[in-house]
């Protein structure tokens, strides 16, 4: 009798295994955060979020993550705002401590592709030092072909871009905190948002910015001014452009903020004109080439927040972080058409709230940064 019962149990075990096989074989791709159909448009190659990325010391907490960059070694650099945390979030550093966690993480953090913390600069107040003005509101980070690290800020007086070595040694500052002279001044900036260095010419392109309405170029070694331009290659104007109205004729100037600039290997320069929901394409000398509209009816903060190029030789795709519609759009760079997208608004792993930046490593993995109440960096693996 006992043996019969055992036999029955064994049969049940076998049936369970067989059922598991069937279940597994019928399973589709897993996409952390929800059904793939809810997360992406049509197409294949769904990026899958790595929920374990990155790792921070147990008592560190990031505030708004306002910039992310990948260096030539596929290390990921994050700039975040330690001062954006409130006393409750930074309970451990209150006097007396409110809670067992946390202290604000330093503003600059460097991770490897597995999310291990490799390096950090600064403390909960920022990264002040002699010879430069650390921004009051961190915004934008870029690591150039010589491993120099560029940092920008968008606080009310943050009119500067700062160059550091990879170990955090101050090297150079362009612009001056607290002083701005408009969109046609060649010495001072106006709340610059982001920047990139052209490895061919060692020129620094700045998306300038939250106050000015232009792209401005400097020599990345000497800091010497080279050139600048506005929308359509026009001379920029600081005249009030008014609020964006869906369906209006395209205006001849950028609206603030001019939020990102990216340089392709074929010499095209892509500029994110955020509130106008458009990406404009230029030659390196500022000659206008083309433009595209992304989610053109988007109001509020606009749809074109940050740009990135795919890692293939031809850089066939352009990626846009749309922090209003909370998705990463994949754009055919030649056709300037959105071919796919991933992400949705939400707070779970793999979703976005104010996705502010996007970068891609040499393997095609995406890394994103979120501000406002998003406050995190995420990694998406592409299989």
């Amino acid at each position, binding site marked *: 009798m006992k*043996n019969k019962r*055992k*036999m029955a*149990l*064994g049969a049940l*075990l*076998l049936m369970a*295994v*067989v059922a598991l*096989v069937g279940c*597994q*074989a019928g*399973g*589709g*791709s*897993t*996409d*952390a955060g929800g059904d793939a159909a809810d997360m992406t448009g049509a197409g294949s190659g*769904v990026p*899958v979020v*790595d*929920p*374990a990325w990155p*790792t921070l010391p*147990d008592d560190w907490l990031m505030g708004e993550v306002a910039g992310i960059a990948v260096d*030539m070694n596929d290390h990921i650099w994050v700039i975040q705002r330690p001062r954006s945390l409130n006393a409750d979030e930074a309970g451990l550093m209150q006097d007396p401590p409110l809670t067992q966690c946390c202290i604000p993480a330093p503003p600059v953090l460097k991770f*490897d592709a*597995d999310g*291990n*913390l*490799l390096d950090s600069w600064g403390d909960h107040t920022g990264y002040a030092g002699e010879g430069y003005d650390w921004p009051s509101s961190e915004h934008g980070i870029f690591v150039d*072909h*010589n*491993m*120099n690290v560029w940092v920008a800020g968008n606080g009310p007086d943050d009119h500067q871009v700062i160059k550091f*070595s*990879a*170990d955090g*040694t*101050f*090297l150079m500052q362009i612009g001056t905190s607290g002083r701005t002279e408009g969109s046609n001044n060649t010495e001072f900036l106006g709340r610059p948002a982001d920047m990139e260095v052209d*490895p061919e010419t060692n020129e620094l392109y700045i998306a300038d910015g939250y106050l000015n309405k232009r792209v401005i170029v400097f020599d990345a*070694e000497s800091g010497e001014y080279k050139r600048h331009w506005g929308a359509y290659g026009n001379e920029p104007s600081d005249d009030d452009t008014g609020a964006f109205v869906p369906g209006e004729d395209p205006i001849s100037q950028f609206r603030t903020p001019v939020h990102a600039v990216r340089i392709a290997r074929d010499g095209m320069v892509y500029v994110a004109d955020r509130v106008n929901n458009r990406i404009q394409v230029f030659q390196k000398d500022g000659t206008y080439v083309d433009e595209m509209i992304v989610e053109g009816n988007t109001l509020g903060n606009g749809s074109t927040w940050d740009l990135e190029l795919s890692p293939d030789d031809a850089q066939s795709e352009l990626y846009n972080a749309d922090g209003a519609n909370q998705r990463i759009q994949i754009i055919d760079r030649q056709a300037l058409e959105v071919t796919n997208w991933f992400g949705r608004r939400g707070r779970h792993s793999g979703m976005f709230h104010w996705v502010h930046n996007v970068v891609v490593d040499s393997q095609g993995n995406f890394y994103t940064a979120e501000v406002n109440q998003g406050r995190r960096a995420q990694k998406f*693996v592409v*299989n």
Partner: protein
Amino acid sequence: MTPAAVPRFGRRIAAFLAAAVLAAPVVQAHDIPDEVLIPVFLRETDGELHLLARMPLLLLAALNAPKWGAGYLDLERVDPTLRRAAEAFGAEAPLFDDDGALLPPRVEGYRIALPWDRSFTSWEAARQAVAAEPLPPDTQVFWNQGFLDLHLVYPAPETGGVSMECGVAPGFGDRVALDVIHETRGEDGEWDGDLFHISVREGRVALDPSALQAFRAFARSGVEHILTGWDHLLFLLCLIAPFGSLPHLKRLLVIVTGFTVAHSVTLVSAALGHAPEAAWFPPLVESVVALSILYTAAENLISASVGRRTVLAFGFGLAHGFGFAFALGESLAFAGDHIPLALFSFNLGVELGQAAVVVAILPLLHLLSGSDRARMAVNAVLSVFAGHAAWHLLEPRLAELSRAWVLSGEAMPSWSWLLWPLGVAGAAGWVVVTLRSRRSGTRSRC
């Protein structure tokens, strides 16, 4: 299990689970990897050995190179420092002939390269990079961002091959490693390269090993792996713990042989490339290895029979073999042309190490197991200890498996049909053996 054994078994299980759960770690610490890889090309031409290496400037910190401004190298005055660095590399990454005699290096050239320079991708490109014009003296090179490319020349050994060690920047320990591509001419006249990853851990590595050198190196590696592989040792301990007395020697031999045969099969097959390449496979194997300890420890506390134990040793031995293969994987390049011999000698080393462990433990168990009650107590203590340790091993491995599985973003690949029949057969075999052992009454209580 006899009815009388049930209460005792229940108490043991309760104690085992309590020990395992209460000891679960609350927080996992993490390591900070920071490996510095130095690409090296080595080729013999015109009766001399030519070595080309690209060393990160970071490693020159101790040489205190002249700088200006915020920390830029003074390129007009840096030359003597670079020569010293090249000489230091020759001394800290020495080459030896087959007799162990040091081959004296001569500095042929050196040059600073900027971080973006990716020319060290082949012998020819590296040679051109070292021989290129120096950077203009006004170039801004931050002192730890960039590379020192260097060219060293050695007299070629008259007979036999060369060996190499890595002791570069000793302050960095094993975080500095050489990726040496040793190029030799094939029969078709073309250059073929073998890659050797050498850190201070590997000691002296023969770049063109003889059969004897390969045999010695891999047998030693096998012994070291089993003796330092705590998970394998714990499994072995659990396998033999219930039979830990000399009268059970024959039974033990059967069990250990089952383990040996199984892990030999998967070790060889995996080392020859017949193993899944999916990113989740290594953590799956590592998890099964930890699970094998946990399960065997639990079974020791319930009921262990020789028949079932042999099946168990064989089944889990398959997973352990994959684990051995992971350890062997990257180092197989050190075998040169003697890969089958290396596999054999590594496995032999594992078996020797395993035998040594059994020989060392068995008399001790025998001494402690003076009576059935004492044997049961020893078995219980060892099993709880091993199970506890396995719990700690299992937790992070399962986390890694889960992560790798999620990131794979796909259903199990097509080869998985092989795994499922094996699983079904194993489960069926377990049921059959259990029933048979109950009928025949050969179970060994513990």
